């Protein structure tokens, strides 16, 4: 039952802080090779079956890569509808972390049932947008207006208000300072508020703060050049950009949000900034979905920014855990090469942001060190199970 692989994270305590941090991955990174020899249609049908955890983001990245490679024009409505589904999937993943993992950090049992209604919302939204077919088919069509998704977005607002924020997500987004966040988290019933309050009481706000580089915007041309090399498999397993490890996380995306900036200036890019960035991102999703919904009905083609070699395409999508990159090469209408570069490989690089954060933990009590490390790993969030060992 370890087909999906796992991470093994080892901390070797030293004088004052860990002497060494080891991160090993057994994730099956070459599974995408099974698409070699398949048609684009078969690939788009089979890919979400294999990569089913963030299946929407995976399918969106695949569709972008394939359409680029085949020179197919996508209209604005289809593109907006797909991104709308990616946003909803991101909300689901964030809420799962909050409902399933966060209770354990304050000594409570997971409350996964809280997150179940959001799982049910995804197929509802998908059907509302693509009533006549698959959202990620080569010639998918979306003929609805924003009104079609008003109800699911309102339901998302309602769920997030009740389960996480205790006020509407848009109202919560007015919290723009460490002080205001402290006021919000004090005395609130939601697990998110209680965890943030608990963190502050323990003085753990700055835990694991590092100054790891954020993954910059990467052009399709630059990514194509890097992935079309003999050592591409090694790059996919342990990616670095311009000789630096980089992070691609909710914190990286929300780095300049007012609240995250306030927390960073006080505590650095540590545990509190990471958890708050997840909340900022989650609170912003209904608004982002409404903006995307306003673009539904557009027949304007999505402009293509770059031209890669014929038959080659790159698709980039911001998935829940970070940037997801797909690359495809076709020859004679069949896939010649398929590659996936996932955010977990950037973030859990043996010398990456998690390794650096763990290496900064100055705690001598083994049990407390284990708790701190587990929170830090969870705050970045690998998409596989992991074993954390303090030696």
């Amino acid at each position, binding site marked *: 039952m370890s087909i999906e692989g796992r991470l093994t994270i080892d901390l070797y305590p030293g004088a004052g802080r860990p002497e060494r941090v080891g991160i090993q991955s057994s*994730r099956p990174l070459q599974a995408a090779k099974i698409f070699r020899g398949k048609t684009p249609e078969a690939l788009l049908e089979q890919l979400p079956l294999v990569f089913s955890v963030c299946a929407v983001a995976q399918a969106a990245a695949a569709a972008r890569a394939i359409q680029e490679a085949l020179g197919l024009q996508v209209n604005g409505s289809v593109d907006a509808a797909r991104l709308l589904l990616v946003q909803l999937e991101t909300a689901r993943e964030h809420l799962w972390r909050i409902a399933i993992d966060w209770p354990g950090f304050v000594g409570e049992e997971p409350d996964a049932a809280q997150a179940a209604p959001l799982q049910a919302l995804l197929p509802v939204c998908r059907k509302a947008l693509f009533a006549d077919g698959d959202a990620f088919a080569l010639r998918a069509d979306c003929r609805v207006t924003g009104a079609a998704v008003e109800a699911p977005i309102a339901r998302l607002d309602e769920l997030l208000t009740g389960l996480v924020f205790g006020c509407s997500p848009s109202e919560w987004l007015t919290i723009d300072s460490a002080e205001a966040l402290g006021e919000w988290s004090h005395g609130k019933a939601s697990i998110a508020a209680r965890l943030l309050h608990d963190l502050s009481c323990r003085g753990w706000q700055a835990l694991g703060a590092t100054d790891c580089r954020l993954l910059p915007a990467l052009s399709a041309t630059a990514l194509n050049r890097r992935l079309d090399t003999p050592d591409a498999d090694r790059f996919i397993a342990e990616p670095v950009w311009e000789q630096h490890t980089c992070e691609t996380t909710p914190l990286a995306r929300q780095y300049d949000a007012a609240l995250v900036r306030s927390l960073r200036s006080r505590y650095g890019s540590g545990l509190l900034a990471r958890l708050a960035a997840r909340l900022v991102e989650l609170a912003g999703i209904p608004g982002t979905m409404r903006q995307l919904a306003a673009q539904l009905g557009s027949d304007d083609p999505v402009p293509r920014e770059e031209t890669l070699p014929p038959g080659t395409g790159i698709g980039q999508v911001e998935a829940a855990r970070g940037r997801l990159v797909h690359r495809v090469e076709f020859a004679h209408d069949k896939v010649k090469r398929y590659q996936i570069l996932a955010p977990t490989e950037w973030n859990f690089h043996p010398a990456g942001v998690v390794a650096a954060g763990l290496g900064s933990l100055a705690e001598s009590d083994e049990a407390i060190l284990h708790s701190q490390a587990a929170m830090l790993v969870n705050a970045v969030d690998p998409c596989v199970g992991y074993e954390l060992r303090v030696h």
Partner: protein
Amino acid sequence: MCLALPAKVVAIDEATDTATVALGEVKKEVSLALVSDVHVGDFVLIHVGYALNTISQEEAERTLQLFAEAGLVGEKQS
């Protein structure tokens, strides 16, 4: 890059909202908290101890076939 495994539900414990699922010869306990209306004999996608959603037997078999093509499972897991 994240895989979830299709597995068959072979027993359900309603008191704990968990199920015993089988993938080939291997059995495992998973939480059913994220899914509803699951019955013995159904197929579910499992990931890190949770059933994520139910899928048809056909989808489960096709997924396992794809995993087999990738060399991740044997051919006769389902």
